[in-house]
């Protein structure tokens, strides 16, 4: 019987070796190791064996089963791997086909500029203040040292709603509103972005609606040199390390002394080009030391407190940054314009 077992093993082993599919392999398993298989059948005749032979045959039968099982498992692994490889081979795709898109919308360039500037000033300890777009004459003009009939009111042609209500012509009214909230106690350090309105015909460089960012610092001992320092820091962060600044005297009713701030032209590095009208400098904002009347109307003691304020045009910053040549693009909401800023 030992020989028969060996024969059966050899026979089955050959069939395992010959199997090329998992099905054939399974057939071999069922045929030889199943309950009706020849090994089981053979073992049924164990009763006729002597007590001497019986353990030997039993041991042999177990060896054959184990070896065969192991051999089938090994072969199975090989066949499975082959089958998977074949399957994967059929699953090959064209990796150059376009992927399933994940949408990306664009931030409006004005929002981009505002948020970037906000972040620079937040980094310097400022908070962001807000105020209404429909303002009273008091906040928009009078509290900013522009009494009725002041000639400087002509600098800004105003959309009036009533004799006392108007669309704010500047974000400066937020200066007074913020100072009032501080109840005469410094320091005040705010910037205020927002929409403003003036009676201008819309063209490439004018818009009846545009955005400004106002800034205000009020505390004891604030100096004009501090204004320069804050701006030097801001300009380097926003426009780049190699930009220079210069101040030119100017006039705003709510600041004294007043200044325009220029930065060296990025296009030509101050050499002079079309962008800077051959001056080497680009005007970017107006600023100055807060006028004592404005401090007083905001509830701050001008004998004790000083401050500086500044205002900049957001569209101008965006136009400089991206090279946009027509202010109307910001308000047309053309997808071909907006989409480009999705990469920002």
């Amino acid at each position: 019987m030992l020989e028969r077992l060996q024969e059966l093993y050899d026979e089955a082993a050959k069939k395992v070796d010959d199997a090329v599919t998992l099905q054939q392999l399974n057939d071999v398993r069922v045929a030889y190791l199943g309950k009706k298989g020849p090994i089981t059948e053979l073992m049924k005749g164990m009763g006729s064996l002597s007590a001497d032979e019986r353990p030997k045959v039993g041991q042999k039968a177990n060896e054959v089963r184990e070896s065969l099982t192991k051999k089938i498992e090994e072969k199975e692994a090989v066949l499975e791997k082959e089958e998977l490889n074949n399957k994967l081979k059929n699953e090959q795709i064209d990796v150059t086909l376009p992927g399933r898109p994940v949408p990306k919308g664009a931030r409006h360039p004005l929002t981009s500029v505002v948020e970037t500037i906000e972040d620079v000033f937040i980094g310097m300890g400022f908070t962001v203040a807000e105020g209404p777009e429909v303002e009273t004459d008091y906040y928009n003009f009078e509290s900013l040292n522009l009494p009725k009939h002041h000639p400087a009111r002509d600098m800004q042609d105003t959309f009036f709603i009533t004799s006392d209500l108007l669309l704010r012509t500047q974000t400066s009214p937020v200066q007074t509103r913020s100072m009032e909230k501080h109840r005469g106690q410094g320091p005040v350090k705010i910037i205020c972005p927002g929409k403003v309105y003036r009676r201008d015909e819309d063209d490439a460089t004018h818009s009846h609606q545009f955005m400004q960012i106002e800034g205000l610092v009020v505390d004891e001992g604030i100096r004009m040199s501090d204004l320069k320092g804050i701006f030097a820091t801001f300009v380097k962060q926003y426009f780049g390390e190699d930009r220079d600044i210069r101040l030119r005297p100017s006039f705003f009713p709510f600041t004294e002394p007043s200044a325009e701030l220029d930065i060296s032209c990025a296009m030509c590095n101050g050499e002079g080009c079309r962008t800077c009208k051959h001056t080497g400098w680009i005007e970017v904002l107006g600023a100055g030391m807060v006028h004592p009347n404005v401090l007083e109307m905001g509830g701050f003691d001008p004998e004790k407190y000083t401050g500086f304020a500044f205002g900049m045009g957001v569209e101008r910053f965006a136009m400089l940054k991206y090279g946009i040549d027509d202010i109307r693009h910001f308000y047309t909401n053309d997808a071909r314009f907006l989409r480009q800023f999705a990469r920002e």
Partner: protein
Amino acid sequence: MLVSYQWLQKYVDLTDLTAEETAEKLTRSGVEVDAMTNLSEEIDGLTAGYVEACEPHPDADKLSICRVDIGEDAPAQIVCGADNVAGGQYVAVAKVGGTLPGGMKIKRAKLRGQTSEGMICSLQELGFESKLIPKKYSEGIFVFPEPVTPGSDALSLLGLNDTVFELDLTPNRSDCLSMLGVAYETAAILGRSVKKPEMPVTESSEPSESRVRVDVAAAEANPYYGATVIENITIKESPLWLQMTLMAAGIRPLNNVVDITNYVLLEYGQPLHAFDFDRFNSDEVLVRYAENGEQMTTLDEETRVMQADHLLITNGKTPVAMAGVMGGATSEVQNDTKNILLEAAYFDPVTVRKASRDHGLRSDSSVRFEKGVDPQRVRDAGKRAASLIEELAGGRVLLPPEEFDQLDRSERQIRVSLTQINGLLGTDLTVEDAADVFRRLQFTFEISDETFAVDVPTRRQDIFIEADLIEEVARLYGYDRIPVTLPNSATTPGKLSDRQKKQRQTRRFFENTGMHEAVSYSLTSAAKEARIGIDQQMPRVDVALPMSEERSALRTTLLPHLLDALEYNKNRNEYNVHLYELGSVFLTEQTAINEQPDEKTYISGAFMGRWFEHAWQKENRDVDFFAVKGVLEGLFAELNTSERIAFVQTEKEGFHPGQTAAIMADGIEIGFVAQLHPSVAKTWSLPAVFVFEIDFDELIKGEMPMSYQPVPRFPAIDRDIALIVDKTVSAEEVADVIRREGGSILTNVALFDVYEGEHIESGKKSLAFSLRYLDPEKTLKEEDVTDVHETILKALYTALGAELRQ
């Protein structure tokens, strides 16, 4: 203000500086030179000529053949087309080879068979604007009023070797609306002196008082009025230098008297007016306020109706001038004028400004009066004009002028300490540094204890307080020399408010859904908003004087402009566009508004075309209601406000009656999401458009604080149920009942199927939900879940007639 560089040099020595250098210095210290024009830049080969003879062209009616001495060996033959050319004239000739403005090259030419060697020039051809050219020369060539040497340099004879600065003055620097003011400024920058004009006048035996009486019935509006009578003058063309000076300054020459008043206006910044004294019709000047509705005809032949706060110059009875704004037609100086009354007055800025605005009349005079003229210069200006009239128009000046005088000519004294100066500027200036600036400005001052007591000349009407003086020090010391420091104050935390953070979060969220951010105009019209069903009669915030009907009111919704934007894009073949805007709307309940409106921040969106497109895999989806709702649900989750929100079916004019949902927060409507009504979409020529609009502050109100729940230790059990309900029953109603009855162990209810049609009774639909049960304390047994499940089914049947689908 236009400033001739040649003229400026009459007052300040600028021989060592180029016009460019001077301009740069002015700009850097606060008087901005916006543009510079070199009058002779494009002119070459211009010479003076004498027309020896002038004959008609044999073959052309309109041409003349002139023999012109241009200082060369032989006279030149020049064919000229001007009507006013004649023998004996001194003219400006562009020689062959020369050039004229606009790049015109002068060549030898043949005109109708006659040789022409050069061109006799008109003032237009020399680059002057037509509106500045005296009437006499506006239709033809220019003729020198006095003999000149043929062949001499016509550019210098014409005063064209000059550069004109165009000053862009800030409103405070009205002192620079005069040549003397610019001279003081230039002198201060350079540390030089100012040479004042001379004004010799022959002593007269009679004062003006003997001819005219001056009364002012409104002293607060007219504290000084000086009237100088000048008799026996001759009105004629002004000398060339005066005409050219005025033209360079942008004023058209008229006649000697008017030109002189304009010249002095430019020189002193003091407007003057000359009346024809014979046509004045009285010997009395009465300055008074107008009566409401009183009329007068001004120089420009317009009849103007006055208001009670307009100031008039009258002859005692009828108006002869609108004070400081414009003279009257009846007493205008004319060619036959013999005797004049010369007015030099101080009019109150606010009064002049009001009249000028009411009549829409801005003149060189009104502009100066509005800003406040120098009280110390009024008399001098009158005297200077009288002196020039005597010189250029002959006549006898009756001095002194007849005056009404209550004018305050005192100088303001301001004290400022060195500590204040350095404190505000952050500088380290010495007493001498500051004193130097005041000396250069020609301000008189005294110093004691490092404090300056400065007498500010009346010409500087812009200096009132210490800070104004400190600015003078800063700008003349140089803004560039102010150091760069950072504030010494305590550090403050820089941050965004929660609301500002949420606005940014909202923007980021929309960006990540593929929506672009739009920014549109706040001004719109009631008619535009009516297109989406908003009552046109609703109280709204109207602009008092709109620039156009389209922009006559403040918006109460962001949607119409977003729809405009979709239409704009569609017309440019952009069919798949999804926009959102975060911006203000302006609401009021007042029909006659007198309070600030309620400014609310809305977030709104408009979607058209494909929502998702992955063409080669055929995964294309158009935007529909649920795409938009999904975006909003995502946003509410992002803002941690989902639990407060419910969508409730509703109807709204302008929107699809079956696809509109009110967005409720804690039971209050805060916005809506809908398909635009197809017939409304059509008015924008748009396809199916979906929109939403939400009150941002209502949305972020009452945020649920995030609270951590322990991760469950026991497994959950999922059960699905399919229900048959009436079509009118909403999924949310069913889910509400399930949630209510499910108790604490029901942790999630999710709809996974909606079905109508075959196998379902008509009027009914099938809704299938997946329910998840979980007990954080123990492993749930089947019986626990079955009990709750049965309760739910019973309640669904009782409340909604829902039956389990078989």
